[in-house]
């Protein structure tokens, strides 16, 4: 296979009350090992659905998806859900430790890694809380720590920072970039924030239309660490935006 993930001719249809809605249509995409690939697109276009297919939570109606086998102890893929989806009966630390229980680790090792992961998102203090005792942003950060903890080959992230304030968000963006550079992880990152996409990604694909198709693909060749106000990023952002707006206009959608 070419990349760490190969998607060929992927399409997906939901059925509801006997009526079919095609969400993804004949998608081709190769995710290269080690790259940071951002996916942007309007609400409801099928971004989350795509990630769900990759990790096996949804079955494609057509096409194939190939994922390279895991290269280390950890899993090949880990997903940060769009909603935090913490297990309400587990304390924060045990929520973060969930994925680790699949690996062959001692209890102490598990605890250590969960705590380290929690510290990365700045929540080590809240380790013993239950999810309902957290704020919205804190929950999202715990979900992020849960996926980071298992150290997968590919991190699938579904708008992981959308509930965070600018400062926390920028800190985590930088943290994510650092982790990636240190470990060479592949990241598939869904976001609705174009600045975020250009700041983080090597490549950005624009998903739009109904059913969702890839309508734009932009590379950002700038070295990390990047400067947020760099002109290249600004330019890439405008291009992505153009692709999005163009699609929307041509589609004649309400918004």
């Amino acid at each position, binding site marked *: 296979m070419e990349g760490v993930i190969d998607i060929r001719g992927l399409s997906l249809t939901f059925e509801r009350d006997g009526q079919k809605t095609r969400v993804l249509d004949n998608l081709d995409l190769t995710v290269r090992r080690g790259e940071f690939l951002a996916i942007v697109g309007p609400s409801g276009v099928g971004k989350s659905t795509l990630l769900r297919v990759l*990790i*096996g*939570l949804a079955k494609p109606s057509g096409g194939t998806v190939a994922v390279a086998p895991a290269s280390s102890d950890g*899993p090949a893929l*880990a*997903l940060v*859900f769009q*909603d935090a*989806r913490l*297990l*309400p*009966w*587990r304390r924060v630390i045990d929520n973060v430790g*969930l*994925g680790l*229980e*699949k690996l062959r680790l001692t209890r102490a090792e598990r605890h250590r890694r969960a705590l380290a992961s929690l510290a990365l998102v700045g929540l080590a203090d809240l380790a013993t809380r*239950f*999810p*309902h005792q957290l704020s919205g942003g804190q929950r999202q950060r715990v979900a992020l720590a*849960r996926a980071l903890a*298992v150290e997968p080959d590919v991190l699938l992230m579904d708008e992981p920072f959308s509930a965070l304030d600018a400062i926390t968000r920028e800190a985590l963006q930088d943290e994510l970039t650092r982790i990636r550079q240190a470990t060479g992880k592949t990241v598939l990152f869904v976001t609705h924030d174009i600045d975020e996409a250009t700041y983080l990604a090597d490549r950005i694909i624009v998903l739009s239309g109904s059913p969702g198709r890839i309508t734009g693909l932009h590379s950002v060749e700038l070295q990390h660490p990047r400067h947020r106000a760099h002109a290249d990023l600004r330019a890439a952002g405008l291009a992505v935006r153009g692709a999005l707006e163009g699609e929307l206009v041509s589609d004649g959608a309400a918004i």
Partner: protein
Amino acid sequence: MRLLPPLGLLIFLAVWEAVPRLGLVNPAFLPPPSVLPAAFLREFTSGEWLAAIWNSLGHYTLGLATGTLLGIALGIVTGMYRPMERLTSWVVRVLRPVPGLAWVPFAIIWFGVAPSAAVFIIAIGVFWIVYFAAHGAISSVDRDLIEVADAFGFRSGPERLIKVLLPAATPGLLVGVRTAIGQAWMAVVAAEIFGVAGLGQRMMQASSLLATDIVVVYMLTMAGLYGLLDTVFVALQGRLLQWKA
């Protein structure tokens, strides 16, 4: 708040005392609570009381445990696997309404006149309640949470069960178990109608002699034992579900 439970009980006892005293019900059938201590003392000093409790507690505990465990196990299996649910659905419908009394001959055939037969009857008495509670609780676990387990690689049945289904279904399961804790006492009486000594048999005996006061003494004994267990259970439930608070 702390005084409400005893207050409620007091009101209840007052009404109970009044009903036979005002002649609304013949005291032969509903002895007022005030005559019960004397009846209790008679039973207690004769040793019957302790022996009956001791025997029944044995049947109760074993029957409740057996029925509950089986009910949970099967409820989980049919709650998790749709084909299993379908395969059993009609059989369940045939066996479900068979009353405890109708199982008595089988209990005698399979276990003889032995405490294990009583255990069997009690187990059946609670089985269905727990089964349906477990089945319902497992099959209505939020799919979003199951997906979390899936996404982290817990895809086999047992893994999924332990990581998500069981903890998520716990509130519903506990409702079933709590109901069973009560139902099992009801079943004790039915289970002891064939030669197995205990509370139920003693009650039947008293009832056939119209010794209602003794019947009520044993009823309250059951209530006491049940109350104790239920209190412990509710405390346990509170601990298990502290994440809900």
